[in-house]
């Protein structure tokens, strides 16, 4: 039986009634939820239901049409240039890694520490090595992204996000471009993070991961959250059966 960590931390992120249209298509039709410190929320649902757009709205890479985002009672929406300050606290891991191809692994982790946090080179190096160790990439510190496997690349991008000491990390389909073996490798790192108390919002099709790690699973369909609950609650719901069918396979973990 899998143990789920406690979720009685204070609310650190509030998402209130987010709407977003692309042209005529309304991608998000009013999405709201709260995130408590240390919590892992997993978003599941068919492709094109606005899950990734939702994550991008949270750190304002996509600007929502209406609604608001609050991080520790400070408004992230309409932050103006202050957004750069909020983004340091909201890490993001992308489906296709988006590593900086011209920098080594350690350079990828260091760059924002030096350029954004203003750390000294020595401190940044120390911190970067620490984070590379966390994701098991110490021996790849001087490799370039092109020299890494997909799993290593995604672990590196997690280290890059972690190094900023974010309050919450957004994972946008982190394993969708990886084969099952590499997926496992990345999910292992994410599970460890979740259990260590990192606050995480994860968009994924990995049901096994959702059931074993999430505090709450949220089903999205047509731009709305149609159902949510703990893994044990959700397993008995009709939406779950439908989603399982959509996903085709049920990956046992």
């Amino acid at each position, binding site marked *: 039986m899998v143990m789920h960590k406690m979720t009685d931390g204070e609310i650190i992120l509030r998402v209130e009634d987010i709407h977003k249209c692309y042209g005529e298509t309304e991608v998000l039709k009013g999405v709201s939820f709260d995130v408590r410190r240390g919590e892992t929320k997993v978003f599941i649902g068919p492709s094109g239901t606005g899950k990734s757009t939702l994550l991008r709205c949270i*750190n304002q*890479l996509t600007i929502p049409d209406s609604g608001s985002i609050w991080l520790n009672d400070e408004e992230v929406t309409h932050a103006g*240039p202050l957004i*750069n*300050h*909020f*983004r*340091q606290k*909201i*890490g*993001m891991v*992308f489906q*296709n*890694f*988006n*590593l*900086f*191809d*011209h920098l080594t692994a350690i350079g990828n982790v260091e*760059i*924002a520490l030096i*350029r*954004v946090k203003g750390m000294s080179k020595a401190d940044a190096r120390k911190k970067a090595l620490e984070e590379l160790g966390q994701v098991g990439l110490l021996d790849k510190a001087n*490799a*370039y*992204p*092109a*020299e890494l496997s997909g799993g290593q690349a995604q672990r590196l*991008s997690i280290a*890059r*996000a972690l190094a*900023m000491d974010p309050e919450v990390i957004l994972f946008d389909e982190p394993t969708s471009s990886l084969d099952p073996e590499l997926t496992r490798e990345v999910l292992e790192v994410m599970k460890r993070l979740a259990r260590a108390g990192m606050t995480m919002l994860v968009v994924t099709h990995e049901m096994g991961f959702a059931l074993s790690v999430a505090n709450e699973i949220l089903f999205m369909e047509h731009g709305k959250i149609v159902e949510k609950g703990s893994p044990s609650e959700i397993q008995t719901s009709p939406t779950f059966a439908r989603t399982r069918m959509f996903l085709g396979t049920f990956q046992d973990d």
Partner: protein
Amino acid sequence: MSILSPAIVESLPYLLSGVFTTLGLVILALGLGLVMGIPMALIQVYGPAPLQYCVRTYIWIFRGLPILVLLFLFYFGIFPLLAPDIAAFWIAAVVLGFRTAAYQSEIFRGAILSISEGQMLAARSLGMSRFYAIRTVILPQALRRALPGWTNEYPILLTDSSVCYAIGVAELLTRGNQIVARIGDPMTVYVIVAILFILLNYGGQWIFGRIENRYKIPGYGHGDA
């Protein structure tokens, strides 16, 4: 030096010093084009619409006019009004530089557009400002990609620079013409001029090859594939 007549041998130092004039023109123009071309490319990709319009108009003019027309326009028209005492050499360098800037900005624009959108997203997601993201993430990659196309500007400028004889800049061809006028033997003189151009070209190619190698990073070549 038996195949060269004494008169030609005597004129060689004068001809050879034209190498420095030609090289000076090319290096100044390349530099001016670089300094102008990168910001112009950035404006075209990231800048506000009115500035984009200005840059597009600039490019349209400087790519659209024959180089000789530009030279005459600046030599007989614009510079006499602005700075009447300036030497033809500097006017030529500015005209070549303005012209290559138009081409270079398109080379850099293409390179910037080739960098995937994800690079900017990742940089911004880490809290980098747009300016920092461009400087530390986009440009270092774009400039590497631009290098092969950019090095094309060197032989183009080198060969174009000979047109500057028309406004009396004492570059290679001008000096060659003067020697022919003085002692005749155009065949020999122009062959020497041609050899000098080829050597300059080769030297430049060698240097740019070194630069490309120096900044090579894994994932940008095609290896053995």
